[in-house]
């Protein structure tokens, strides 16, 4: 299964360690500058970590603020599912997709601690396995709600006075273990159909949810063999859930301090080329120790070397995050092909 011609995907984290970056008046300008740097290097997407435990601004808000000041790079905030409302969460992610014209994703996270539970006061923190089970249900209902408007639901038919064709709007009637949602969404179907779902599958508790629901799974490994094994496990899981493993990208999260990294940006390019060429992963998610410094060095020193080898795009070929990732735009699960009209 070696596929050395498989496209290489590169992503980077903007707020490593959730909000260690100063949450204040400079956040917008600083994040826009970083995003433009990544965009100049034609990276697939940027993640922005978040947790209720803070400190930091709401990640989805920060990336919405960045959206109009960038054109191509994907924007993937962390969004938690434990103490939030699934209906609000999916509406916010869909809206990020609208304001970025098809560049949104979300990295699903859970709130495992008692301290987080006490901030919200809605219920105690459930055990890890239940947290991820629920996160999976939130991913599932989000897809249903994004699909609850078929793409051509808006008709503006002056003759009959109808703005929408209501046969193309669907109640989702979702019944989960801890919540239920009637639907449809209040937001029309976003540009990508379904914004990109990212799951950090580092923890075993999150792995089945990643295999079931993620478009992009993030893993950590200390050797190419370990990475390849994890990727294979995730793809097997995806197949077991009835999915096409070809629609799952597995990216290795790599914490890098390019000041201390032996051999610097060039050596990092070697590692990326080697692991990717060997089929261990579909790409890399760079977690910089110091975003300003490390992203700059990555863009200036690592990316050009990967391009020299013909491994990484020199410019964006599409406009949406799904385009960058080579993922198909899904048809609404409620679409009745051929029927209606």
């Amino acid at each position, binding site marked *: 299964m070696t596929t050395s011609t498989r496209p290489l995907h590169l992503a980077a984290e903007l707020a490593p360690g959730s909000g260690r970056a100063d949450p204040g008046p400079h956040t917008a300008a600083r994040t826009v500058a970083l995003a433009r740097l990544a965009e100049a290097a034609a990276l697939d997407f940027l993640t922005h970590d978040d947790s209720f*435990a803070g400190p930091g601004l709401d990640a989805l*808000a920060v990336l919405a603020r960045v959206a109009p000041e960038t054109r191509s790079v994907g924007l993937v905030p962390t969004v938690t599912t434990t103490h939030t409302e699934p209906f*609000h969460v999916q509406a916010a992610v869909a809206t990020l997709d609208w*304001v970025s014209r098809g560049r949104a994703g979300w990295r699903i996270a859970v709130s495992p601690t008692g301290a987080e539970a006490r*901030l919200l006061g*809605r219920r105690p923190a459930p055990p890890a396995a239940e947290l991820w089970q629920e996160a999976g249900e939130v991913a599932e209902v989000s897809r249903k709600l994004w699909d609850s408007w078929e793409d051509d639901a808006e008709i503006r038919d002056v003759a009959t006075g109808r*703005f929408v064709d209501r046969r193309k709007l669907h109640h989702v009637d979702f019944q989960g273990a801890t919540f239920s949602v*009637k639907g449809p969404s*209040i937001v*029309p179907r976003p540009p990508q159909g379904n914004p990109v779902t990212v799951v950090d599958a580092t923890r075993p508790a999150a792995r089945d949810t990643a295999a079931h629901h993620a478009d992009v799974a993030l893993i950590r490994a200390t050797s190419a063999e370990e990475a390849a094994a994890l990727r294979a496990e995730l793809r097997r899981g995806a197949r077991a859930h009835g999915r096409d493993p070809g629609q799952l990208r597995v990216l290795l999260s790599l914490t890098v301090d390019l000041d201390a990294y032996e051999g610097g940006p060039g050596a990092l390019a070697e590692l990326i080329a080697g692991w990717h060429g060997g089929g261990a992963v579909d790409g890399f998610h760079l977690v910089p120790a110091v975003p300003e410094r490390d992203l700059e060095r990555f863009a200036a020193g690592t990316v050009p070397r990967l391009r020299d080898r013909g491994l990484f795009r020199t410019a964006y070929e599409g406009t949406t995050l799904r385009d960058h990732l080579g993922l198909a735009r899904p048809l609404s699960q409620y679409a009745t092909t051929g029927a209606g009209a």
Partner: protein
Amino acid sequence: MSTATGRKQIHLAAHFPGVNSTTVWADPRSGSQIDFSSFEHLARTAERGLFDFFFLAEGLRLREHAGRIHDLDVVGRPESITVLNALAAVTDRLGLAATVNATFNEPYELARRLSSLDHLSAGRAAWNVVTSSDAFTGENFRRGGYLDRADRYTRAAEFLGTVRELWDSWTPDGEPGPFAHSGPQFRIEGEFPVPRSPQGQPVVIQAGDSAEGREFAASAADVIFTRHSTLEAGREFYADVKGRLARYGRAPGDLKIMPGVTYVLGDTDADAQERAAEIRRQQVSPQNAILALEQVWGRDLSGYDPDGPLPDVDPDPDSTLVQGRVRVADPVAVARRWRALSEEKGLSIRQTVIESGSRQSFVGSPATVAAALEEFVAADAADGFILVPRLTPGGLDAFVDRVVPLLQERGVFRTEYAGTTLRSHLGLPEPVWKGGTP
């Protein structure tokens, strides 16, 4: 607030055209209700006109009629706070107001989101606190479909108080501190993750009309968004609400009253009147006329001819036909009025709905409208207006190009932004920091 000219200053806000029959989607100039470019165009236009703020409404369940999704008006809209964060990138001074429900949210999360917006916009965030609590909407949420109507403001008041405690948990000097709130609605504790935002306290708007709603606004809001858009009703409402302020140690200027108003401009008054009549016909399509009738009668009247006479049957007072919108308060009385009107003037169903429906608030040449707006504010019927255009995205252009300059000439509207924050535009006092003792 008044200037050296002694004239009371007008505050202006722009409402994004809503999911109701005011918005004329069938007009060929009507653009997307969802593309970011429409929001950008309207917000930039409002900022060009030096408006105080840009306003987004919210509805957490698509409206239904007779068990089916209502399809005659605009349906669907983006989530407000996310759009406003994006608009913060393409505007500089304009206030950014999001309507967010106090029943189906939690204080910690919302305080964090609003504080984030205030940081990312450098002090331009506002929250319109609404309290819809019906079971129909509740079906989309974890907490489910309930909150006794009587409790909607109990929760909203404690919600807002708690949010403000969180915002005040950082000192004005930037020191974080713990918070702990324990009340009937919320028991929460920890540390708020966001430093005090540029406005200290984002601006709070209230939209609700009951006695409880007014009292809540008098005790805690900076702005009221009201439906009282006629001179007489406006003055009565204004006096009532301002009269409630002293009880809370607040001055009349601490709470701005801004009715939502529509407008039709023309080169002459006659021209504007003609256009206004045409717009009413566009807003009340034959299908919308039957729908308006059903909303009053609470019955399926789809068999009736919009160009024929009104039904003989009486309204069903216990009807659940209409879901997700405010119900007609006294349907029997409304039906009686409509019948009388129809008989007196010989009007069909559609003509009756057009005739009895709300007219555009301000109709006339730019000079006439500017004069009327000034008179309205000078007469203490309002402190300003939330303008509701009927067209997306160009519906505000003519107002900004033709009416704003006249208001400026009259000395009743700013000629430049004096400050950078929404609080400064509204002339609201600096919030007093109440933190320090959890």
